[in-house]
C-alpha cells in the first residue's frame, strides 16, 4: 500500500474515480431522458416515430462503445469541429457523456419497452375503455406499473454505464483505468496492490449497488 501513501498517487486515484462518478451521473441522466423518449416513440401510433426509435436502438446497441466514443472525439470534435468546452479535459468529458448517453439510451429504451410488455393487456384496454388518450394511458396507467418492473434492469444498466465510463479514457481523460495504467507503469513492483485497489473500489461500490437494486425491485414488484 506504499504506493497510495504518496499524495500525488492518491490524487491520481481520486481524480480518476471523480471522473467516473461525474460521467456516470451525467451519462445516467442523459441516457434515462433519451431512453424514455425513445421508448415512448417505439410504442407510439406514428410509424415514423416507431421507425426512428427502432433504427436508433439497432444502430447504437450493435456498435461497440469504443467506436462511438472514438467517433465522438475524432469525428464530432476533430473532424467536424464540434467543440463543447474550452478546457480540453472538460471537452473530452462532455464528448464522452454524449457517447455514453446515446449508447446507453438504446438499452434504457429496450428495458422500458420490455417493462411495458409486462403490464397485462387488460390494464391498457381498461384505460382505453374509459376514454383515456394514448398519452394518458401511457403516463397514468402503463408507465407507473412498467417503471416498477424495470428497476432491476435499469439498475444493471446504471452499473454497466459506470463500468463503461472507463472507456472514455480512450480519448485521453485521466479516468480510473488510465490512472491505474499510469500507476502501474510508474510502480512496477506494486502491480497487484494497485490493481486490487482500483478493481476493489469498483467491486465495493457496484456489488452492493446491484444487490440494492435487486432488493428494491423485489420490494416494489407489482404482485400479480
Amino acid at each position: 500500500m506504499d504506493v497510495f501513501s504518496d499524495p500525488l498517487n492518491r490524487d491520481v486515484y481520486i481524480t480518476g474515480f471523480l471522473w467516473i462518478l461525474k460521467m456516470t451521473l451525467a451519462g445516467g441522466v442523459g441516457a434515462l431522458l433519451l431512453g424514455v423518449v425513445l421508448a415512448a416513440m417505439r410504442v407510439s401510433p406514428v410509424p415514423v416515430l416507431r421507425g426512428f426509435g427502432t433504427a436508433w436502438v439497432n444502430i447504437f446497441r450493435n456498435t461497440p462503445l469504443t467506436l462511438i466514443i472514438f467517433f465522438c472525439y475524432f469525428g464530432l470534435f476533430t473532424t467536424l469541429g464540434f467543440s463543447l468546452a474550452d478546457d480540453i479535459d472538460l471537452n473530452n468529458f462532455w464528448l464522452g457523456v454524449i457517447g455514453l448517453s446515446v449508447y446507453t439510451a438504446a438499452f434504457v429504451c429496450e428495458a422500458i419497452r420490455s417493462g411495458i410488455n409486462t403490464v397485462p393487456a387488460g390494464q391498457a384496454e381498461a384505460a382505453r375503455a374509459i376514454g383515456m388518450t394514448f398519452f394518458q394511458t401511457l403516463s397514468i396507467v402503463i408507465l407507473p406499473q412498467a417503471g416498477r418492473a424495470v428497476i432491476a434492469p435499469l439498475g444493471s444498466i446504471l452499473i454497466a454505464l459506470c463500468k463503461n465510463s472507463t472507456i472514455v479514457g480512450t480519448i485521453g481523460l485521466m479516468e480510473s483505468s488510465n490512472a491505474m495504467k499510469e500507476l502501474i507503469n510508474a510502480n512496477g513492483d506494486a502491480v497487484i496492490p494497485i490493481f486490487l485497489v482500483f478493481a476493489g473500489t469498483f467491486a465495493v461500490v457496484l456489488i452492493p449497488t446491484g444487490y440494492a437494486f435487486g432488493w428494491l425491485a423485489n420490494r416494489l414488484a407489482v404482485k400479480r
Partner: protein
Amino acid sequence: MSTDAVLYDHPGPRAKARNLILTIVFGIALLGLLYWIYSRFDAKGQWAGNLWEPFTQASTWTDYILPGLLETLKAAAVAMVLSLAFGIIFAVGRLSDHWWLRIPAGVIVEFFRAVPLLLLMFFIFFGVPFLTEQPMSIFWAVVIGLTLYNGSVLAEAFRAGVYSVPRGQSEAAYAVGMRKGQVMTHILIPQAARAMLPVIVSQLVVLVKDTALGYIISYGELIQLGVNNLSANFANVVQAAIVAAIIYIIINSALTGFAGWLSRRTRRKGRAPRAAGAQIQQTTIEPGLGGGGGGAF
C-alpha cells in the same frame, strides 16, 4: 401485453388526421436533422470523393478492413468458447453443495462482473508482465480479459437457468438413481442452456462488441486497422468509422437474428422447459439475479 397496438385504439378519422400531422411534423424535423448533419459534413468537406473512394478499392479491404475483421472474429471466437466453458464451470461451482467450492466460485464471479473490462485488460496487458517478467501476448490479453468478464456473466445466466428448470426434473433424475454430477450434466445444464439461450446469445453480442476494447491496448482488430490505420493513410476517419460501425451492426444483427431463430425453433418443438416460459421474459431482462455486475450491456 402481446402487441403494442393494445396501447391505443384503432385510429378513427380524428386520430388518423392527428397521426398524419405528427408524421409530417416529425418527418420534417427528421429531414431537418439529416440536412443539418449533411451540411455540417459538407462545410468540412467530408463528402469529398477522395475520402470515400478508398472503400471502392480492393486494397483497402484486403490490407486494412478484412485483416482487422479477421482478428476481431478470431479473438471473439476463442473468447466465446473459453467463456462458455468458464461460465458452465463456475455456474456449477456456485451451485455446489460444498461451501469450499461455492464461496470461492461466487467471489470470483461477483468480482469479475463488477470490474470494468478495460481495467482488467490494462492489468493483464500492462501489469502482468511486471509479475512474470516476460511480455504478454496482446491477443491473449484481450481473450483472457473477455473470458473472465463474459464468462462470469454467463455463469450467472446459467445459474439463473438452472433455477428456472422445474424441481420435478432433478427430483425425477435422483429418483431413477442418477448421481449429482449426472443430474447436472444430463438434466439441468441442457435445459438451462435452452432456457437462457436469448441471454447467452445477447452476451455473445456483447463479447463481439467488447473485442473493440482491444483497440485501446492496440490489438490489431477492426477499429485499430480499419479505422485508425486506414484513416492515418487517407485522412478519412469519419468515413472509416461509419464503415466499421456498419460491419459491427451487420455481424451483431446476424447473431441476434440467429438467436431469435434458435429460440423460436426450440420453443416450437417444445424443447424449452415449459414452466420456465413465463420466467424467460424476466430473465432476459435481468440475467444476474440482482447481483453486482449487470449483464448484457
